[in-house]
């Protein structure tokens, strides 16, 4: 069961399904909650890695002309910091919540394809190692997280470094795509009776939008990466200017992916705070419908603004104007969300646990990042800011102040559901305030160093350009963030063991996941609940809050078919076998398929090393292993 390892020995949890402990059970698990926990731990590990990379970068830049690291190492550090934080930290932390929460929030027993879910995780975990390990050998990717070709092509990046990046991103793309098909199907098809789309918790709504962004954005980077891979390995001409290739092709393809990717990173955090704010305001979410529609709007418009990353290349007045206007337009649904969160708190009976502090922190910090984003949307202004620290300030406000604050809020909020224990609030408060001050101290001065002309990605700078003080402030702020991170880690691991017991519903929250024990049993819901409104748990416990909202029952046939029963709290823990609920078997096959993929991709690296027979053996062997494992997977029963 999901939490035997994560849950403390003294918790009132009797192990619902014996044999579900130890390393093997984690490698073979198909339980969405255990996979969510795996995502969480793995992503937190990479957060440590990415954070240390950032600390090294800032140490190098603390004073003019330092040589803490070499220029080459610096290139690897900033490339891997970006790549790690985007692909190995924020997306997987969101995936941890998708996995853990979506089935619980919609009243399902698992995701639509539990084994595919395990596959997604293992591809991510192994792909993460593939792209991270090279830094320990000094051959990490060094061409920036957006890998601009021709710079990242064979002519200018001949070594192994960018091979790891190109292939690693392909691998991680497989993971994200597989997960997205799974969650789209889950949300469309596994909702409990009565759980209409417009009754889904806002986190599930935002996750739903994100999955569509993933399935539409990732194929584009896949194509772009294949081109780069072919250029690097087979001598094709996609990004070869001497053969007539267009140096803007990569930029356009990358940003067609890259801009939706920005929303892939932020929307899950928006979803999490949309759960936290109503809970601690003890008041329904203001403008639920508009919140859902603005999420869809952001997702849709997100495909029409990509070239605002490229104003500096000179696309001409027509293209610049169109992308500029589209970018300003996308500020509207985003602004609507900000106002709705504020209106949710207005008139509420507020509480301020750590999760709420982080949620309010997101609103404030994201607004600052959003406003500097609107500044960039104007091409003349953008020309002054592009490639300076001003842009670095902007996207760290939205991604650290926005996405990470939202995720911390989510971790504090859902930790008790996952582990059965509460995190320490005093330590949480320390972490929040150090984070809040630290992030402003780090990133606010970057607006100034950027405006004074300090370019991004330089490994050092001369004194006397007015940048010294701002850089020192940024570095000091980064150290504060490191301390805040250590407090978080301490709090996280300590609370798992000694935190106060949480019970089903420590926050008095409105949604289905709080109606079942913490940590939930492996089958989630002993009986599928019939949902009659957006806030089923408040209907049960604080009906005055939801009295004015629409309530209605699902059609009787669906209820009978799903054996659904009215909303209730489940407190008893029994095994799935006792309840007669069929559970999927644990299986190693998804792991084996993932392993086959990694071996195949590693073969490409060996190919570059000139060991042709070994490379062929790895690619053909890995491919055969993949196909064989896949057939074994598809021909074995799920449950």
């Amino acid at each position, binding site marked *: 069961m999901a939490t035997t390892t994560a849950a403390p020995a003294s918790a009132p949890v009797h192990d619902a399904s014996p044999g579900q402990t130890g390393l093997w059970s984690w490698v073979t698990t198909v339980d969405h909650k255990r996979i969510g926990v795996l995502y969480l731990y793995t992503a937190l590990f990479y957060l440590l890695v990415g954070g240390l990379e950032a600390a090294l970068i800032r140490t190098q830049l603390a004073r003019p002309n330092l040589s803490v690291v070499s220029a080459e190492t610096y290139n690897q550090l900033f490339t891997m910091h970006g790549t790690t934080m985007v692909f190995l930290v924020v997306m997987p932390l969101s995936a941890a919540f998708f996995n853990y929460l979506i089935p619980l929030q919609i009243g399902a027993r698992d995701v639509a394809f539990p084994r595919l879910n395990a596959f997604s995780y293992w591809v991510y975990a192994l792909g993460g190692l593939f792209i991270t390990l090279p830094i320990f050998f000094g051959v990490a990717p060094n061409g920036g997280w957006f890998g601009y070709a021709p710079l990242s092509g064979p002519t200018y990046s001949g070594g192994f470094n960018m091979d790891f990046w190109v292939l690693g991103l392909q691998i991680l793309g497989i993971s994200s795509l597989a997960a997205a098909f799974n969650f*789209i199907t889950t949300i469309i098809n596994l909702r409990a009776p009565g759980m209409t789309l417009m009754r889904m918790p806002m986190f599930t709504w935002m996750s739903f939008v994100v999955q569509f962004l993933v399935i539409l954005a990732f194929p584009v980077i896949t*194509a772009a990466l294949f081109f780069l891979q072919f250029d690097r390995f087979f*001598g094709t001409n996609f990004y070869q200017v001497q053969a007539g290739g267009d140096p803007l*092709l990569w930029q356009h*393809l990358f940003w067609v992916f890259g801009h939706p990717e920005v929303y892939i990173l932020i929307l899950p955090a928006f979803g999490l705070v949309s759960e936290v704010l109503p809970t601690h305001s003890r008041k329904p979410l203001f403008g639920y419908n508009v919140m859902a529609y603005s999420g869809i709007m952001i997702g849709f418009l997100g495909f029409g603004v990509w070239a605002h990353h490229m104003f500096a290349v000179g696309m001409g007045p027509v293209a610049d104007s169109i992308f500029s206007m589209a970018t300003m337009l996308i500020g509207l649904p985003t602004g609507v969300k900000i106002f709705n969160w504020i209106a949710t708190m207005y008139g509420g009976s507020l509480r301020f646990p750590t999760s709420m502090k982080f949620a309010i922190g997101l609103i404030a910090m994201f607004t600052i990042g959003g406003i500097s984003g609107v500044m960039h949307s104007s091409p003349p202004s953008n020309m002054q800011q592009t490639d300076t620290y001003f842009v670095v300030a902007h996207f760290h406000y939205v991604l650290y102040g926005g996405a990470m604050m939202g995720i911390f809020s989510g971790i504090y909020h859902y930790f008790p559901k996952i582990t059965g224990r509460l995190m320490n609030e005093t330590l949480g408060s320390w972490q929040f305030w150090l984070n809040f001050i630290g992030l402003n101290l780090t990133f606010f001065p970057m607006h100034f160093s950027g405006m004074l002309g300090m370019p991004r990605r330089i490994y050092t700078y001369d004194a006397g350009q007015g940048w010294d003080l701002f850089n020192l402030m940024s570095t000091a702020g980064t150290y504060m963030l490191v301390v805040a991170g250590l407090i978080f880690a301490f709090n996280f691991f300590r609370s798992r063991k000694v935190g106060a017991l949480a019970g089903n519903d420590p926050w008095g929250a409105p949604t289905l996941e709080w109606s079942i024990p913490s940590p939930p049993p492996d089958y989630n819901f002993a009986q599928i609940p019939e949902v009659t409104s957006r806030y089923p748990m408040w209907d049960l416990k604080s009906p005055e809050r939801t009295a004015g909202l629409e309530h209605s029952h699902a059609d009787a046939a669906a209820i009978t078919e799903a054996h659904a029963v009215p909303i209730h709290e489940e407190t008893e823990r029994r095994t799935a076998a006792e309840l*007669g609920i069929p559970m999927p078997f644990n299986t190693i096959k998804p792991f084996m398929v993932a392993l086959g993929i990694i071996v195949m991709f590693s073969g490409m690296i060996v190919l570059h090393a000139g060991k042709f027979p070994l490379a062929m053996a790895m690619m053909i062997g890995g491919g055969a292993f993949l196909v064989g494992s896949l057939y074994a997977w598809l021909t074995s029963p799920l449950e």
Partner: protein
Amino acid sequence: MASAPATASGAHEAHEHTHYTTTGLDNRKIAIWAFIGSECMLFASLISTYLVYKGRSLVGPLPHEAWTSPAGQVFKPILNMPVTTASTFVLLMSSLTMVLALAAVENKGKPGYEGLLGSSKTWLLATALLGAAFLGFQAYEFTSFVHEGLTIRTNLFGTSFFTLTGFHGTHVAVGVLWLMSLLFIDLKRGLGPKDAIIVDISALYWHFVDVVWIAIFTLVYLIK
């Protein structure tokens, strides 16, 4: 509220009804349509790149125009319309045999049906063979291009053409493997109406690969 008082009989029922879904549709069919939506973006990227690079090659051979090299060697327009027309026709017909295979599986056991339209085995085999024939035409096309001096490295046309059609060919090859696997199951235990869903999703994939070719045929081969 009573918590978790599921009875043994309820449990048995639950077991039989594990496939309750919100929409009444099969999970796999929703997933394959989402996958096809995703594939639209993949092929849009590949086709965009081909079109963006159209007419930008610095050297020949070229698809629709003759080209004389600085050394005086003359290269004819390289695309072979008769061969590609034949392979296009083959792929279009494979979609017909595919729908017939699905219809045969869905209607298996209905009186008079199998006699009228042939068995699912026949149509699955026919579809796989037509797919293999398409791949054969493509292999012929690729090798003859290489003999005529066009490889994936020669120019932007070669680079984008082989990549685009190669990706499509890979999709066809995966489809052929998929169909062969279905045929194998059919021969081993017989596919009936209960298996219609697994034939249905493979058919959707197969037709999608066909419609992508319809687009490629016009954009790459017909428009000069």
